[in-house]
């Protein structure tokens, strides 16, 4: 097989109907501004934790909707809650509350993984 110098992700199937929506509903209910995220990535660009790790707060938004809760559990641990993302967000999303809600949601809600 030819080596092209790059790799591709293995194909995967995401069944939206089986994804547990408890976490996303919990977040949007308590922090409605989260729904207005346009995934611009300003938050990740300024993030203190992203400077030290591969933490990507923008990706969390997608991961929550895709139901990748185990990855979120590992990732969310890296946020230091410094609040820079909140200041740069063009949509004025209260990102610190989103992080706190994800953390709380993952421990208190019984989420099907």
């Amino acid at each position: 097989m030819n080596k092209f110098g790059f790799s591709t992700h293995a194909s995967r199937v995401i069944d939206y109907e089986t994804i547990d929506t408890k976490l996303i509903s919990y977040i949007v209910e308590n922090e409605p501004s989260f729904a207005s995220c346009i995934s611009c990535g300003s938050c990740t660009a300024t993030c203190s934790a992203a400077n030290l790790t591969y933490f990507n707060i923008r990706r969390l938004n997608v991961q929550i909707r895709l139901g990748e809760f185990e990855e979120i559990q590992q990732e969310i641990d890296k946020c230091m809650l410094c609040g820079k993302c909140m200041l740069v967000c063009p949509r004025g999303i209260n990102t610190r509350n989103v992080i706190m809600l994800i953390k709380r949601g993952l421990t208190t809600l019984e989420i099907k993984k």
Partner: protein
Amino acid sequence: MNFNFFVLPFTIGFFIIIVVLGVRFTRWIWKLSKIDKLRILHGFFTRRTLRAIREAWNESLLHKNIFKVNPFLGFMHMSLAFGWFLIIVVGHIEMYALTGNLTAMPWESVFFRYFEHTTSHAHAIFAHIMDTLLLLVLGGVGLALYKRVNMKFFGIRRNTQLRVSDKVALYSLWAIFPMRLLAESATAGFYMNGGWLTNNIGHVFQLVNLNSNGELIFWWIYSISLGAFFVVLPFSRYMHIPTEVLYIFLKEYGIKLKREYNSFSEIQVYSCSRCGICIEACQMHHAKISNNQSVYILKNIRDENITERKIYNCLLCGRCETLCPVNLKLNDLRITLRINASKDFNSTYDFLEQPHNTEHAEVVYFAGCMSHLSPSIISAVETILKTTKTPYLFIDKEKGVCCGRPLMLAGQQKAALKLINHNRESIIQSGAQTLITSCPICYKTFKEDYELGQMRILHHSEYIHELLTNKSLKISKSTQKYIYHDPCELGRGSDVYEEPRFILSQTGTLKTIENERQKSLCCGGSLGDVSLSMQERNRITHQTLLQLTKPNPDCIVTACPLCKKTFAKQKKVPVKDIAEIVVECM
């Protein structure tokens, strides 16, 4: 022994309150940690006790702090507390002096005038004094009644809702002194044993032919209202009266709020008098939030109906704390609640590697996350450090780790300690003598949580002040008019008020506004609040800016990157950090 059946309600109430308070106080002190109990033991026979007595005299009786906020409100509290105290004290002196009976029952001094009908000169003098004191208390009751009608007159916006026990206590408190006046006057009508006030009202009673049954009814009602007040007091908001005294003593013995909710926190909760001063101080009403001020939180803790949103929706700016007449540590109290609410999901930060600094420097500069968002502050501070030829190490230039305070404010204590230990290690490894930071949020936690030993911790405004006073930095005066905005964490949080003002007086003209220093307003960007939306924040910022721009400054100067960033949203008046101003004038 003088006795009549009407003394029973008072006597029963009196014994009930003694027992209930005894049990509560013992339980509170019993539950304190061992070290705190030792603190009480060691402090008891020292000057601290005298200081506590003085503070209890000033605050529990004279209510000096409330006088500072509003004289009418102060007079109301003072006349009720101090007036009643004097009535009790002078009443006892009167009884002992006139009867020589030192083994009298508690009711005998309270109902002295019903039992004692002699009218000598000494009696008359005491009667006049007691009448005057009674009038003082009645003045307080009158103001309390008026306060229910016109709260604004007392500088209060709103107050808490009363529970049934509060209402019973309130109405019996209102009844006590008017009934005492009527009862004593009725007796004075028969025997002329009253003072200038009661004798005259007694005359009127004689004119309308009041008989001894009528007199007895007044004494009964007086006794019942006293008894009722004593019985409900421990279960109503008036529990603050005895608890505040206990709080003052414990505070004076050096007991502080811990990072967990314990019996000392509970003592603070019960010490709140619900005067409502914190409601007026709070800026959250600009964001239309009016159920979450400190007094409501304390009430919610007592009524056990506290929600996470209530705990987290507070700027932690500390305005209420500085105005609180009881000196409650409202911010720390709220943080302990947050720690409790979020203790199940603290981060571990396993990715952090052991810091190994190879560089050493006398001076370490820690800019802080927020300063990295506002690079002009960093470059200004670096320019100053370079101009004064200070060798320094910029410790969080590239892979900076947050100081931990934002996590602490959100109640994530364990997680915060991880970051604190990491940064602490790397600062100590650098062998620095001085740590300079540009961010008041970092500054406060460096001072309070980092335990850096002998290392000097300075905000850059303090450092510049030092350079100016020892003449290592020279600046020229410009024609600019400034207004200085005190950041919450630097001003109220760390008591740095004068250094930035000194610097600005050297670089231009400093204008003053009404709400500055301890009273300064929050910019609205505070990291203390986790659940405030951006729209709500903007409303608070708008109101603060209105006050800051009132004297038409050329520039709003602040010393916090977060305040700067928050204010910079508006375009009318430029906002600069104090370091930038200094660089401009160099």
